């Protein structure tokens, strides 16, 4: 029982981190039809700028805020300079965003140094609760709670505000949205910057969870993010949460019970979904 609970909590926490990365990815794909392989760069830049701020100011919260800011600024520049010129061309998108991903990753080493940097959980989130046999690590719960809050806030925005409505409508039919008088480029930029900020938060939250940050962490997580986008259905926000949790849990359980499969399990999950539901679990029907 105690084992089960800790595997679940572990899986949920990992799932939430992947969700933060995948949420932006799926909306960017769904709305803008853009394959953004440099999304992981936002994750790692969020982690580094946030962690350095955290180390200097000794405030984890300020660190998170700086990570968000980094995500938004980088997102803005990326959309304007890298993405705008390649709208509508997938091959160019893959090449330029993959290239930019490597640039972002190498820049980390140039700016912050090549070595992994250890990160501690802030005091007030450190330690664990003991409930009988079960040990619950506080920081994991923190990640899960933040993940659900982010999901709740954005789900509300998507379903209850005008801009959210426009984003959803844009995922279904871009041309029509423009023909109704909406400047979709502005909406794109908004979504891109929001997605970038979410990825940066993910990176920052990841840092104390894994105990250290390193330049390649972005690439590693971006791959999980892409798997989640495919499983959840490209363009589906709720789908990305569900798929991220699934991937997180599968990874956590496999790592314990069948360790040699723990890396392959995500690929297997993706293959199963692609065979039985190629549009993903939640793919929106395009009108």
């Amino acid at each position, binding site marked *: 029982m105690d084992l089960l609970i800790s595997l679940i909590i572990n899986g949920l926490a990992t799932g939430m981190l992947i969700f933060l990365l995948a949420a932006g990815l799926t909306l960017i794909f769904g709305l803008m039809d853009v394959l953004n392989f440099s999304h992981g760069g936002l994750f790692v830049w969020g982690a580094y700028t946030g962690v350095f701020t955290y180390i200097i100011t000794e405030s984890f919260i300020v660190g998170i805020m700086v990570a968000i800011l980094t995500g938004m600024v980088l997102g803005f520049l990326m959309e304007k300079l890298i993405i705008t010129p390649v709208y509508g061309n997938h091959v160019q998108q893959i090449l330029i965003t993959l290239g930019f991903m490597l640039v972002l990753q190498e820049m980390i080493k140039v700016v912050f140094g090549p070595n992994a940097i250890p990160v501690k959980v802030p005091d007030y989130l450190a330690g664990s609760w003991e409930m009988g046999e079960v040990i619950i690590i506080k920081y994991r719960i923190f990640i899960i709670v933040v993940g659900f809050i982010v999901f709740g806030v954005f789900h509300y925005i998507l379903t209850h505000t005008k801009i959210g409505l426009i984003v959803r*409508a844009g995922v279904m039919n871009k041309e029509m949205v423009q023909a109704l008088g909406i400047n979709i480029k502005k909406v794109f930029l908004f979504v891109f910057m929001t997605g970038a900020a979410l990825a940066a938060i993910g990176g920052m939250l990841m840092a104390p969870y894994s105990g250290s940050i390193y330049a390649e962490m972005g690439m590693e997580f971006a791959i999980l993010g892409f798997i989640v986008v495919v499983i959840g259905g490209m363009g589906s926000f709720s789908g990305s949460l569900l798929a991220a949790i699934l991937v997180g849990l599968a990874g956590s359980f496999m790592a314990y019970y069948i360790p040699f499969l723990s890396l392959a399990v995500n690929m297997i999950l993706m293959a199963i979904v692609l065979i039985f539901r190629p549009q993903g679990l939640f793919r929106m029907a395009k009108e």
Partner: protein
Amino acid sequence: MMESLLKLHNIQTHIGQFHILQGIQFEARVGEVSVLLGRNGAGKTTTLKTIMGLTPASSGSITFLNEEISKKPTYEIANTGIGYVPEDQGIFAQLTVEENIKVAMRKETSEAFERQEYVLTLFPDLKKFWKKAGGNLSGGQKQMLAMARAFVNDSKLLLIDEPSKGLAPIVVEKVMEAIMEMKKRTTIVLVEQNFFMASRIGDTFTLIDDGRTVHTGAMNELISDDAMKHKYLGIG
């Protein structure tokens, strides 16, 4: 002669390497219904898309309210006061009827809500299915929703592409009545293959063939010109 609202002059449009429109001209005057006629594949839909900037013209001019709009992006064209009802209706399938209209409503003013109320009296079905997903509506209801969406803003011009397509005769009748009502408040450019409907609603016609305007005039002329109807529309 009434005031000119929209004027297309020698419009050429390319889609990819295809030269689709090769000289479209016509004029829509305030308060009139101008009907675009022509065989399947003649270029009627492309003409409307070109006005909306969705397939921008490669040359020629489009003036709306005495302003050149052919180089503007689609959203700006819409915001100059043009409502568009595409051939496939462009309903947001997963949004409800209410949300579809809400996306379209540019300013949530009391005037806009009055127009919404008015449009719902034209299409009571929409009110009945207010919370239903657009994708689950019948063909006729989708058509009505698309028209309501275009009408809810204070559009000076509506572009409506084949509203009767694929609808049962009794539904066509309803749609036609609604267009007649809308006509009292706004100017309309209508693509319509159903000649009976076109001739009853239209004030003027423009005949398009192979991407070119071949004739334009008062609807009455066409009604009595059997030779022209036969040549370009295959009727009469």
